[in-house]
């Protein structure tokens, strides 16, 4: 793995608004990298500074070992798929895809035509070349935008919320296709998204951004299982937050968690700078369980009362009130054969395990 893009101390100010705060980031060759965060967190600004559409107020952007400070967007080894796709409506599909080849004067016409057809085939639009671009559906526009960007074989493909305009089914299909495409061409993809599921499904690594800074940078599994802060934990998936108090930090961490009592967790379940004192513990809904009649468990149990039931078909989400816990615990249960859907007010027992606990900043 070699570093392809390096951002060092990147800051961006708009008048008195601090859009990017001291971003330090390395993105590797061939990586599928995602910038994830709520709207206004600076993820699109960061992408645009890499593309060259925004200058940095401070700091260095390097691509392939070259400082990009004086390199305008049209000369950078990056290509972008825009959120609106920005398909040129006055051109045909083939003319759109061939647009970036205008500057390649060493290629003759038949070569260009062949490259266009190959690019269209790659995105599943073989034979669409002569269609008018404005007559395409949303999913097809997306594919044209991809073909148009990839035909130039950039070092980096930048994707600005490329799937947000598609419906759910189309989005899931395109996610899979994008992953396949990225493996096929081996180009570094940088995806901007506010959809945590999308980021988890597609990325090798994810940077979660809040208010212009990177909150956590990790692979999807680490990000989901070991979020380093409360805001990362609540942005990605669901998380129950419990007040806790760290009693001692030795090799393991001795902690009291409200409702669950005193327990020991391993050091990797807590942030590095953990210290004795009040803290917040997080536990995912699917790592908790309800002990149904006739089922047994060797895990720990705590009594509770069902407060709310949300039925999803394959899953049921319960809110269960547990003595000593301020907020009801959110618990996700698979609707396996023989499992009833409990009613509000039902007395129940909650299964939990300290291994799924994380301490948060």
């Amino acid at each position, binding site marked *: 793995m070699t570093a392809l893009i390096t951002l060092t101390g990147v800051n961006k100010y708009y008048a008195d608004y601090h859009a990017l705060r001291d971003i330090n980031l390395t993105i590797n060759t061939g990586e599928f990298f995602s910038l994830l965060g709520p709207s206004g967190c600076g993820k699109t600004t960061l992408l645009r500074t890499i593309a060259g559409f925004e200058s940095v107020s401070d700091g260095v952007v390097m691509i392939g070992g070259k400082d990009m400070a004086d390199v305008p967007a049209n000369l950078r080894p990056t290509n972008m798929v825009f959120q609106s796709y920005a398909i040129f409506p006055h051109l045909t599909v083939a003319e759109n895809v061939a647009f970036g080849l205008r500057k390649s004067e060493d290629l003759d016409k038949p070569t260009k035509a062949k490259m266009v057809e190959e690019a269209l085939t790659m995105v599943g639009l073989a034979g669409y070349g002569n269609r*008018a671009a*404005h007559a395409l559906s949303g999913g097809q526009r997306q594919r044209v935008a991809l073909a148009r960007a990839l035909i130039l074989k950039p070092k980096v493909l930048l994707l600005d919320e490329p799937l947000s305009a598609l419906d759910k089914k189309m989005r899931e299909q395109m996610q899979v296709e994008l992953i396949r495409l990225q493996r096929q061409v081996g180009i570094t993809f940088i995806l901007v998204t506010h959809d945590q599921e999308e980021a988890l499904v597609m990325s090798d690594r994810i940077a979660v951004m809040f208010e212009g800074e990177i909150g956590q940078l990790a692979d999807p599994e680490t990000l989901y299982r070991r979020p380093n802060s409360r805001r990362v934990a609540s942005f990605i998936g669901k998380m129950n937050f419990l007040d806790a108090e760290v009693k001692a930090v030795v090799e393991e961490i001795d902690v009291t968690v409200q409702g669950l009592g005193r327990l020991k967790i391993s050091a990797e379940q807590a942030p590095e700078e953990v210290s004795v004192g009040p803290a917040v513990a997080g536990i995912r809904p699917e790592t908790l369980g309800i002990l149904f009649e006739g089922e047994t468990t060797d895990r720990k149990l705590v009594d509770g009362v069902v407060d709310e039931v949300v039925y999803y078909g394959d899953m049921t989400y319960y809110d269960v009130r547990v003595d000593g816990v301020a907020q009801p615990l959110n618990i996700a249960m698979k609707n396996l054969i023989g499992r009833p859907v409990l009613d509000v007010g039902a007395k129940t027992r909650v299964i939990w395990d300290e291994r799924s606990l994380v301490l948060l900043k």
Partner: protein
Amino acid sequence: MSLRIYAIAYLIFLYAPIVLLPIFAFNDATIIAFPLSGFTTDWFTELASNKSLHAAVKNSLFIALVSAVTSTILGVCAARAGAMHRFRFKAGIMGFIMLPLVLPEIIVAVSLLVVVVQILDLGLSNWTIIAAHVLICTPFCIAILNGAFQNLDPAMEEAAMDLGESRFSAFRLVTLPLVMPGIISSMLIAFTISLDEFIIAFFLSGSSPTMPVYIWGLLRFPASLPVVMALGTILVALSIVLLTIAELLRRRGLARAGVKDEGGFL
């Protein structure tokens, strides 16, 4: 029902005088009155031989063409800036540019006359009229072009730049073709405004008058009125042809860009 009658009456009131133009242009009498006395093409023949009228028409066409092109170029710059960029005092600046729209032309004419003759100490010529016409046409051009640019996705130019084009060629290859219908409309409107503008041209024309100023001069001689009618007929026919062409171009542009048709002139 009564509303329909009103609408029809309104249209008749609006267009009947224009219908009178060709009728009297071909009428064999110097007095503009019914009954008609006979068919003639004499007035058109006279029109063809009137050298000073030709000079006036040529002046007007030249002024209108230069004003239309100049004010449309300025309009494109302003509308593009307004649609794609954020800058300080944007609302104020845009408002200031649009101000000539509501300024009485007589005021513009007199003040420009003072500026050109007294302060700048320049002679009056077609160019002074062009300067003034650009001033009054530009707000109209901006208003028309704003619509064209506002519909444009700002990412479009960025996409072209991202694909290797410079800022200017991105504009030329992507933005320009997409706003072309707006540009044609803008030039047409500016051309028409300039062509029939009288007050400013009257104040600022030098030795050779523009067409409206010349026609106004002709009115002192009732005998030449039918010639004016003949000229008017040609102008109306020309306008209809021009507008039709512009509208056809506009519709074709919209169809090519796949945008929903939202009005237009015809």
